[in-house]
């Protein structure tokens, strides 16, 4: 070793280390086990790499296509409309009506804009007070929404749309109310909706009154609105 720091003592110590320090020799079995291990390495299955590559490609494609994939919609046409109605109710709950009208004064304009005529309109009572009426556009149809607020502060939206042919009311989810009516009760996104048909008009009464006690009152609201309103297709 060439070292400018090395003195006579250093050289002696270096020699001593080289000569006196015991040397340990590798056992023969170690050499054998190394050769064995090298000859039989733990190999990955040949199919693993293509499988991982394929999975990664598929994952990348899914991630890439997520924005353009169609949204999962309910297969039931009634449930589809209920979802749109609930969305509209949520919008009104947050930001109020966009073109608020008062009933019955605003009825002519609302009929002209929506194509739905209210021969009789529910303008509120001791339990439900009228907030506003407005035209809406849901599931590619014009419609009419009337918003009420009950004495406890719940917003209750009554929405009317032309009933399409596909809008078939099944017997499932029907609830008998007051011995006279049997609307459907639909739940979606934390809201409950009464669904019924009056002539060619599909009617929805939606609110967040989901608890059992609230639901009993919501039945009462349904009756109040149902008996006092008569929607028809104007043109």
């Amino acid at each position, binding site marked *: 070793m060439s070292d400018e720091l090395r003195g006579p003592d*250093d050289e002696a110590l270096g020699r001593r280390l080289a000569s006196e320090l015991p040397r340990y020799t590798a056992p023969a079995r170690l050499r054998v086990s190394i050769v064995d291990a090298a000859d039989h390495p733990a190999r990955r299955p040949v199919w693993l790499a293509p499988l991982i590559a394929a999975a990664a490609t598929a994952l990348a494609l899914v991630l890439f296509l997520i924005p353009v994939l169609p949204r999962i919609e309910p297969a039931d046409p009634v449930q589809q409309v209920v979802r749109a109605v609930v969305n509209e109710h949520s919008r009104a709950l947050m930001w109020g009506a966009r073109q608020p009208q008062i009933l019955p004064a605003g009825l002519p304009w609302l009929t002209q804009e929506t194509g739905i005529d209210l021969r009789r309109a529910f303008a509120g009572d001791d339990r439900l007070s009228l907030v506003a009426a407005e035209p809406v556009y849901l599931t590619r149809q014009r419609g009419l929404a009337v918003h009420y607020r009950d004495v406890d502060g719940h917003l209750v939206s009554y929405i009317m749309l032309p009933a399409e042919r596909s809008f078939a009311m099944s017997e499932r989810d029907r609830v008998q109310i007051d011995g006279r009516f049997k609307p459907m009760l639909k739940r979606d996104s934390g809201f409950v909706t009464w669904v019924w048909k009056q002539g060619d008009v599909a009617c929805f009464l939606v609110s967040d009154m989901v608890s059992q006690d609230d639901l009993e009152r919501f039945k009462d609201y349904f009756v109040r609105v149902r008996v006092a309103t008569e929607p028809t297709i104007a043109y």
Partner: protein
Amino acid sequence: MADTDFQRQALQHIDALYNFAVYLTRNPPEADDLVQETYLRAFRFSHRFQPGTHLRAWLFQILRNTFLTFYRLRERETAIAEDGVPDWDVPMFHDTSTDEGGALEAHTDLERAMRRLPEEFRTVLLLAEVEGMPLEEVARVMACPVGTVKSRIFRAKERLRGLLKDYEKK
């Protein structure tokens, strides 16, 4: 997978590597495992070895890095021991105690003094003085400049002399 020729060349250094491993681990069974792991890594990454460069230095470098990896792991584990005192004799690879695991007994003062040196001093002396490696190769194994190797050798010998004097007094 290393080819047969590479294996044959690499295995020529097994005794030197084993000796180095024994001094690092102070435990022959640990040294066995360390050398075996070193060769397996070397064979697995043989394509990274550049022919014409020093195979011996490359193997020593792998061995030392492997040792330090496990050593640091053990250091972290012992750091959270209940009594808070690091136990350097805890085996690296085995679960056996040092008594059962064949811990190496030092026979001479020189050997005893070497064991008390810090790893970087022990390594530099083993490589430069015992294995007779050129300083450039030692620097490669230890991943430091040649100047650092020189100063480590100087300080390691100083420390070693001090320890030997202490043993002589006793």
